[in-house]
C-alpha cells in the first residue's frame, strides 16, 4: 500500500528536482548556453500547460459523465494549431515586433494603448482564471485525500484546506522565485518554461502509463477494450450536436485567449519557426493525452464501486489494483498538470495586473517618477511578486468558498467562456483595421456582462448569488432577462446559451460600434501595424547574415556620420573584436555604441528606429514613431529659432547701416562746420584787424567815425567771445565738469527770465499757457539757458508770416513737460535726427549761430536729469523739454 508519507516524500523530491531544472535553465540562459532551451520541442511541450489537472483528472470524469464530449476540449486547440498559418503565426509575429507582454497588452496596444481596455481585460482575466486556479488546488487536495483514504496506516486527513494552503504557498514561492527573477524586456522565463516542459513529459508519461495499464493490464488488449467500451453505458455516440460545435469553438477560442496560453505561446516564444513544429506536435500531444480517457473511464465505471468520484479514476484505479508505483506516478502527473498551470497562469496574471493596474496607479501618484529607471524596476518586481501572491490567495479563497464540490469540468468551461470574450477584440484587432477602441470596449463590456449574468453567477448554484426566483423568472420578474433564457428563448443548453449570446452580442457591439465611430490616430496607426504586420517585418533573421547587416549599418552610418568618421569607428570596433577590416560583428555592444553615436547626430529615437530596421530585431513601434515626430518638431523649432536669430541679425545690420550713414553725415557736417567756424572766426577777426589798422594808420579821423569803428571792433570781439564761450561751455558740459547750483524755483520765473533775455519784443509773438506755477528743484541758470536757446531759435528760424511760439507746461507721471511749438515750416524728417548733434546747422541760411545751441541744450538737460527731444507732428518746429519734478539730479 502506498503510504501518505511516501507520497509527500516523493512529491518533495519531485519539487526539488523541478527547482533544480528551473535553476539550471536560468543559469544556462544567463551564460548564453541555452541553445537547447530554445528548441522547438521545449516550446511545444510548454504549450501543454493547456492540459491542466482538469485534463488529467477531469477528462476521465467528464467522459464517465458525458461520453465523447470531452474530445471537444482538445479538438478545438488542435485545429487552431493546425491552422497556425492564420492566427497564431500573426499573434506571435505581432507579439515579437511590438514587445507584447500579455493578452491585455496586445488588446490595449492594438486599440491605441488604451489603459481602460488593459484594465478591463485584466479584470476579466483575473475573474475568469481564479476559479481555474481554485480547481487546480482542489484537484491536488482531492488526490492527496484519495491517497490518505487508501493508506490504512494513516488517520483520515481531517483538514483538506491545509493541503490546499500548503500547495498554494509552495506554488507562490516557486513562481516568485523563477517568475520574477529578472525583468527582461521580452518577459521570457527560461527556468519556468523548462520546468513546464519537464512537467509536460511527466504528465503525458503518467497518463499514457495508466492508459496502457488499463488497456493491456486490465482490459486485455485493444480489441477487448473496444468491445468493453461498446458494451458499457458509454457504448454509443451520444454527444448533443450543439454542445459538440459550441465546445469545440469555445476551446479553440480559449487556446488563443487564455492568459497562460498567450504567455507560453506568444510571450515565451523564442523563434517563430518553432510554430512549425508545434503545428503538428501539439495536436499529437493533445491526441495522446485524450486517447486513453475513454478506456480509463469505462474500466473505472466497471471496476470501481458506484459513487466513487470518476474525476479521480486515474488515481484510484491503480490504487485499487494495488499498483502503488503507478498510482504515485499518476499523482505526480496530476501534480505536474496543476502546478505548471498555476505557475504560468499566475505569472501571466501578475504581469497583467502589475502592468495595467498597479503601475499606472503608481506612476500617476509619482509625478515624474518614471525618470528614475532603477527605481521603477524594483517597484515593478515588487508589484509582480505581490500580484502573484494575490492571485494565488484569490484562488485559495475561491476554493474555500466554493467548497470544492462542483464537478471539475463545469468550472473549467465557465472559465473558458469568460476568457473567450477577448476573442472578438483579438481577432478583430489583428485581421480588421476598422476595429476600434470604442467597439472593443463595448464588446468586452457587453460580452463580459452577459457571461457574468448567464454563466459565472449561476455557476455558484441557485440561491448562492442569484436566487432561485431570479433563475426561474428573471430579475424583478423581467422574464426576458432569465439567465438561462435570454430574450425568452428557452430550452437551450445553459452553457451553449451563455456562450452563444455573450459572443454574439460581443461581436455585434464590436463590429457595429466600429462601423459607426471614428478611431483616434494612434488606434489607426496601431491597427495598420498589427493587421499588416507581415508587410513590415521580415522573418526573424539569424546571425548568419551578420556581415551583410554590418555592411548595411556601415552604409547608413557613413551617410549620417560622414565616410571617414564612420569607417574609422567601424575599423576600431572590428579591431576590438579581433577582426581585420572594417566590418565588425553586429553584437549587442557594437549596436548599442553605434546607436549612441548616431543618436548624437539624428536623435535617439531615430537612431533606434534606423538600427532596428536594419538589424530587423525589433520593428519600429509607435513610441519610436512618436519620438521621431517629437524630434522633428524640435528640429523645426530650432530652425524657427534660427530664423528669428537671422531676422535679428538683419535688424542689427540695418541699425548699423543707419548708424554708419549718420556718422558719414556727421563727418560731412563736421567738415562743413570747420570751414564755417574758420569763416565765423575769420570774419570778425578780419574786420577787427581792418578797422584797428585804419584807426592806427589814419590819425585824422573825426570822433564820430572813430567811435563807429571802435564800436565795430568791440562788437566783433564780443561776437568772438560769445562763440568761444559756447564752445567752452559745450566742452565743459560734455566732460561732465559742470557744477550745478540747485535751488527751489518757480517755472514761471525761469520762463520770464528767458523771455526777457531774448528781448521778447521783435516779431515773434509768445503764447504761454499751462501750469507755470510749479516749483522745481533745479539749476535756474542752466535751465533758463535752454529756454533762451529754444526761444531764440524760434526767433531766428521761424519763417511764418507772423511768427508765433507757444510755450505750454504740464505735469505728467511725475515729469514736468514744457513744449515749445512754433508755427513755421518745422524741421524736415531727415534732419530731425541731426539737430541735437554738435556743429549741426539746418540748411545754409545765415543766422549767426555756430550750430552748438541745441547740442548744449541736450547736454544741459542730461545733466539736469531730464531730456530735450524734437516733437514731430506739430504745425511747426516743436521741442519738448522733460524734467523730473522731484527726482534726484543726475549731475553732482
Amino acid at each position, binding site marked *: 500500500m502506498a503510504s501518505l508519507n511516501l507520497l509527500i516524500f516523493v512529491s518533495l523530491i519531485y519539487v526539488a528536482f523541478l527547482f533544480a531544472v528551473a535553476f539550471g535553465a536560468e543559469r544556462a540562459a544567463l551564460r548564453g548556453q541555452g541553445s537547447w532551451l530554445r528548441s522547438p520541442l521545449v516550446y511545444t511541450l510548454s504549450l501543454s500547460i493547456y492540459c491542466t489537472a482538469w485534463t488529467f483528472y477531469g477528462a476521465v470524469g467528464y467522459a464517465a459523465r458525458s*461520453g*465523447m464530449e470531452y*474530445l471537444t476540449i482538445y*479538438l478545438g486547440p*488542435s*485545429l*487552431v*494549431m*493546425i*491552422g*497556425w*498559418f*492564420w492566427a497564431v503565426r500573426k499573434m506571435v509575429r505581432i507579439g515579437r515586433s511590438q514587445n507584447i507582454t500579455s493578452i491585455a497588452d496586445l488588446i490595449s496596444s492594438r486599440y491605441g494603448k488604451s489603459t481602460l481596455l488593459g484594465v478591463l481585460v485584466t479584470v476579466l482575466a483575473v475573474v475568469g482564471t481564479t476559479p481555474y486556479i481554485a480547481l487546480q488546488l482542489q484537484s491536488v487536495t482531492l488526490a492527496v485525500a484519495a491517497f490518505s483514504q487508501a493508506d490504512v496506516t494513516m488517520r483520515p486527513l481531517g483538514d483538506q484546506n491545509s493541503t490546499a494552503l500548503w500547495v498554494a504557498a509552495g506554488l507562490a514561492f516557486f513562481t516568485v522565485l523563477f517568475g520574477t527573477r529578472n525583468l527582461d524586456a521580452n518577459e521570457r522565463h527560461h527556468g519556468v518554461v523548462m520546468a513546464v516542459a519537464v512537467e509536460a513529459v511527466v504528465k503525458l508519461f503518467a497518463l499514457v502509463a495508466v492508459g496502457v495499464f488499463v488497456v493491456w493490464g486490465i482490459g486485455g488488449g485493444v480489441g477487448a477494450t*473496444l*468491445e468493453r*467500451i*461498446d458494451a*458499457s453505458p*458509454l*457504448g*454509443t*455516440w*451520444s*454527444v*448533443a*450536436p450543439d454542445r*459538440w*460545435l459550441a465546445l*469545440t469553438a469555445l476551446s479553440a477560442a480559449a487556446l488563443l485567449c487564455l492568459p497562460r496560453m498567450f504567455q507560453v505561446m506568444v510571450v515565451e516564444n523564442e523563434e517563430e*519557426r518553432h510554430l*512549425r*513544429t508545434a*503545428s*503538428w*506536435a501539439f*495536436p*499529437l500531444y493533445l*491526441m495522446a493525452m485524450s*486517447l486513453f480517457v*475513454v478506456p480509463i473511464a469505462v474500466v473505472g465505471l466497471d471496476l470501481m464501486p458506484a459513487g466513487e468520484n470518476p474525476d479521480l479514476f486515474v488515481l484510484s484505479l491503480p490504487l485499487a489494483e494495488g499498483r502503488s508505483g503507478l498510482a504515485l506516478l499518476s499523482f505526480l502527473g496530476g501534480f505536474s498538470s496543476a502546478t505548471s498551470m498555476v505557475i504560468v497562469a499566475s505569472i501571466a496574471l501578475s504581469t497583467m495586473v502589475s502592468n495595467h493596474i498597479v503601475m499606472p496607479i503608481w506612476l500617476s501618484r509619482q509625478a515624474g517618477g518614471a525618470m528614475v529607471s532603477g527605481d521603477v524596476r524594483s517597484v515593478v518586481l515588487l508589484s509582480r511578486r505581490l500580484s502573484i501572491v494575490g492571485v494565488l490567495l484569490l484562488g485559495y479563497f475561491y476554493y474555500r468558498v466554493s467548497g470544492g464540490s462542483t464537478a471539475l469540468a463545469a468550472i473549467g468551461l465557465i472559465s473558458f467562456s469568460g476568457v473567450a470574450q477577448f476573442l472578438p477584440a483579438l481577432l478583430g484587432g489583428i485581421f480588421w*483595421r*476598422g476595429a476600434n477602441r470604442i467597439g472593443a470596449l463595448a464588446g468586452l463590456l457587453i460580452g463580459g456582462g452577459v457571461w457574468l449574468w448567464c454563466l459565472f453567477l449561476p455557476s455558484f448554484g441557485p440561491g448562492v448569488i442569484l436566487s432561485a426566483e431570479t433563475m426561474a423568472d428573471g430579475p424583478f420578474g423581467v422574464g426576458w432577462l432569465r439567465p438561462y433564457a435570454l430574450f425568452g428563448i428557452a430550452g437551450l443548453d445553459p452553457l451553449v446559451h451563455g456562450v452563444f449570446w455573450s459572443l454574439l452580442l460581443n461581436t455585434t457591439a464590436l463590429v457595429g460600434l466600429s462601423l459607426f465611430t471614428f478611431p483616434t490616430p494612434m488606434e489607426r496607426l496601431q491597427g*495598420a501595424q498589427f493587421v*499588416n504586420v*507581415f*508587410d513590415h517585418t*521580415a*522573418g526573424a533573421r539569424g546571425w548568419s547574415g551578420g556581415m551583410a547587416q554590418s555592411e548595411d549599418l556601415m552604409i547608413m552610418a557613413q551617410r549620417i556620420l560622414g565616410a571617414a568618421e564612420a569607417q574609422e569607428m567601424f575599423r576600431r570596433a572590428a579591431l576590438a573584436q579581433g577582426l581585420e577590416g572594417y566590418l565588425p560583428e553586429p553584437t549587442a555592444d557594437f549596436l548599442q555604441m553605434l546607436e549612441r553615436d548616431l543618436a548624437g547626430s539624428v536623435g535617439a529615437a531615430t537612431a533606434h528606429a534606423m538600427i532596428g530596421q536594419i538589424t530587423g530585431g525589433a520593428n519600429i513601434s509607435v513610441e519610436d514613431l512618436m519620438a521621431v515626430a517629437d524630434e522633428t518638431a524640435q528640429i523645426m523649432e530650432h530652425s524657427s529659432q534660427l530664423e528669428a536669430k537671422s531676422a535679428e541679425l538683419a535688424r542689427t545690420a540695418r541699425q548699423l547701416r543707419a548708424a554708419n550713414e549718420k556718422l558719414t553725415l556727421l563727418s560731412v557736417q563736421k567738415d562743413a562746420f570747420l570751414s564755417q567756424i574758420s569763416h565765423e572766426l575769420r570774419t570778425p577777426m578780419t574786420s577787427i584787424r581792418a578797422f584797428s589798422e585804419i584807426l592806427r594808420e589814419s590819425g585824422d579821423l573825426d570822433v564820430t567815425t572813430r567811435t563807429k569803428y571802435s564800436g565795430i571792433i568791440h562788437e566783433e570781439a564780443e561776437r568772438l567771445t560769445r562763440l568761444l564761450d559756447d564752445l567752452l561751455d559745450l566742452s565743459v558740459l560734455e566732460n561732465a565738469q559742470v557744477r550745478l547750483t540747485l535751488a527751489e524755483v518757480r517755472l514761471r520765473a525761469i520762463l520770464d527770465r528767458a523771455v526777457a533775455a531774448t528781448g521778447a519784443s521783435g516779431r515773434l509773438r509768445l503764447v504761454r499757457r499751462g501750469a507755470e506755477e510749479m516749483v522745481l528743484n533745479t539749476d535756474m541758470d542752466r535751465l533758463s539757458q535752454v529756454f533762451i536757446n529754444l526761444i531764440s531759435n524760434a526767433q531766428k528760424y521761424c519763417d511764418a508770416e507772423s511768427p508765433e511760439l507757444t510755450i505750454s507746461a504740464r505735469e505728467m507721471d511725475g515729469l514736468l513737460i514744457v513744449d515749445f511749438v512754433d508755427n513755421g515750416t518745422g524741421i524736415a524728417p531727415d534732419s530731425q535726427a541731426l539737430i541735437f548733434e554738435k556743429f549741426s546747422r539746418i540748411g545754409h541760411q545765415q543766422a549767426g549761430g555756430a550750430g552748438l545751441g541745441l547740442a548744449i541744450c541736450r547736454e544741459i538737460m542730461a545733466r539736469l536729469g531730464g531730456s530735450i527731444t524734437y516733437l514731430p507732428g506739430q504745425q511747426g518746429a516743436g521741442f519738448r523739454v522733460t524734467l523730473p519734478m522731484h527726482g534726484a539730479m543726475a549731475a553732482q
Partner: protein
Amino acid sequence: MTDRRPLFLERSSYRQRRLGDAARMLPVFGGVLMMLPAIWQRGEAEGAPATSSAMIYVFGGWVALSVAAFVLARWLDPSVTEPSGDAAGSTRGR
C-alpha cells in the same frame, strides 16, 4: 544561368504561396472533418455509431491532420514571408 535564375525563383515562390494556401485550408478541412460527428445519430436512435467506431474516426482523423500539418511544415520555407502583393492589395482596398 542568369536567365534561368529568376525563372527558378519565381517557380519556387509560386510553390511556396500555394503551400501557404494549403496551410490555410488545412484547418478548414479539419474543422469540417471534425464537425461531422455533430450530425451523427445519437443515443438510442437507429444507426447511432458505436463509441469504438467514433473513437477510430476521430483519432484517425486527428492523426491524419497532424501528419498533413507535419508535411506542410516541412515543405514551407521558414524564410517565406507573407506574399506582399496580396497584403498590399487588401491594404489599398481599405
